[in-house]
């Protein structure tokens, strides 16, 4: 009931945005109402704004880019200008319910450190990334080209992505790093993929926690 009320009040701009970013809805579904959220690489702050309006979440974004910081201020979300590569030392351990890294993991240089930091600062982490194992990507590689798609919209020479992985790769990484996967959602063409996700899914969203 409460959820329905909240959704009915969504700003049309926010609703439009959610339609354009299916992973936002997936993430929002996992967020407990009223939670404390940290969104790493938050861009213009639209996910935080979406979570505030749909889940009554309170939170902060972290963004390095000047235009992103300004856009966050315009979106009325808290933003801390900082470089994720230098860690999350400004945040206390266990101070957030969820730490989110949405479509940024693949662009991080220090992948292991950021995952470790996320699970230090947050009780749970939510990670979304493009699936390199998506069939369209595999086909392009078979044709001898680097994949370019809606989820990987860059050419090999201008991509910010340095650490691409498949669903299988990420799950192996979690296993090796003592990270428990709580939930997984795979998206393809804007819908949920349950059948051969590592082949048919273009975006993966995971909810994880640190094994203690």
């Amino acid at each position, binding site marked *: 009931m409460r959820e329905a009320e909240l959704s009915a009040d969504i700003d049309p701009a926010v609703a439009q945005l959610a339609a354009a970013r299916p992973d936002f809805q997936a993430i929002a579904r996992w967020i407990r109402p009223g939670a404390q959220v940290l969104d790493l690489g938050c861009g213009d702050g639209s996910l935080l704004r979406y979570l505030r309006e749909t889940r009554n979440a309170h939170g902060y974004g972290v963004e390095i880019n000047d235009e992103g910081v300004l856009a966050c201020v*315009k979106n009325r979300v808290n933003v*801390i200008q*900082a470089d994720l590569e230098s860690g999350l030392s400004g945040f206390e351990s266990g101070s957030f319910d969820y730490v989110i890294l949405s479509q940024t993991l693949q662009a991080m240089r220090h992948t292991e450190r950021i995952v470790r930091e996320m699970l230090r600062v947050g009780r749970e982490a939510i990670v979304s990334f493009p699936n390199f194992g998506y069939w369209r990507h595999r086909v392009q590689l078979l044709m001898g080209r680097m994949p370019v798609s809606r989820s990987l919209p860059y050419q090999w020479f201008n991509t910010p992505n340095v650490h691409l992985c498949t669903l299988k790769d990420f799950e192996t990484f979690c296993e090796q790093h003592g990270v428990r996967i709580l939930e997984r959602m795979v998206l393809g063409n804007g819908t949920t993929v349950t059948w051969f996700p590592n082949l048919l899914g273009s975006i993966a969203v995971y909810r994880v926690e640190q094994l203690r």
Partner: protein
Amino acid sequence: MLDPTSVGLVKPQTVRFDEPLMLKCGRTLSRYELVYETYGELNPARSNAVLVCHALSGSHHVAGYYSEDRKSAGWWENMVGPGKPIDTRRFFVVGVNNLGGCHGSTGPASINPETGKPYGASFPIVTVEDWVASQARLADYLGIEQWAAVVGGSLGGMQALQWSIDFPTRVRHAIAIAAAPKLTAQNIAFNDVARQAILTDPDFHNGDFYSYGVVPRWGLRLARMLGHITYLSDDSMAEKFGRELRAGDYTFGWDIEFEIESYLRYQGDKFASHFDANTYLLMTKALDYFDPAYPYGGDLSAAFRPARAAFLVISFTSDWRFSPGRSRDIVKALLDNKLDVTYAEITSAHGHDSFLMEDPHYHALMRAYMENIDIGGGR
């Protein structure tokens, strides 16, 4: 003709308080005056008031002009005015000269009612907390229960932070620009060299130079020259002056040789001609003493526990006097209290003085933040 984006011609006002003010140093000011200026109009709900706190050598004259002469512009003319980031069409902006100042508020050059002579060195040491307490009385006098925002750069930013701690329900937004939660040893060292320059000037007469008809201008000049160097960055000085020579070639003498020397001496002289030496001592002391975490054993997060305001913290990459790291300390303490905070680190070449400059990104951020401040229905 004055620019339409200026608040135009302005006049300072004076308010006298007869209720004694207990100062942090233990002494009491039995009565005192504050000089202030206001721009824009207070709305009927009294919810659109913005207090602008001044820095070390600042005053109440934040925006506008005293005459058609553009040199009389307020110190933050580029930030405050109709259509400017702190928009006076929307906000009622108040600038105030701090206690101990030399622009009209009660200070060392004022007559001590008990002796009939200028206070001089006997003027009590004032702190950021004392200023905030006196500004709260000014707010009462103006009928402002709660500031929409308290804004300041450098020492002004420290006042904004102190407001959020001392009067949590009277500040909706605190904006601290190029500030720090306390000075570093290096900063205190710079301040002390500046003070020593003044204290050892033969014309200082232990602070009672008023009755000798002199001013310790050499000491004040030196203090300002030192301060000025620390407010700029190496890069900005190199860009502006480089090693440019006055006479085109070395003269192998003690006169001005390099352009930077000429500039610093000019700035020092200009400052010494209008600023009070005792005020300079007091303001640098207030900086040194500022440390809200001190009563909490250095725990800044504990100091901010009472705060309720939303915060905007801004630092500048080339500011080595109040570096971005010090602003991040503030942000950390605010985050620990789960307060609303936005932190921006502006890429800038102008050192500490960047907060006074008109950088497009910095001003765009200020504008966006101020536009989102809720002042109730209508403008």
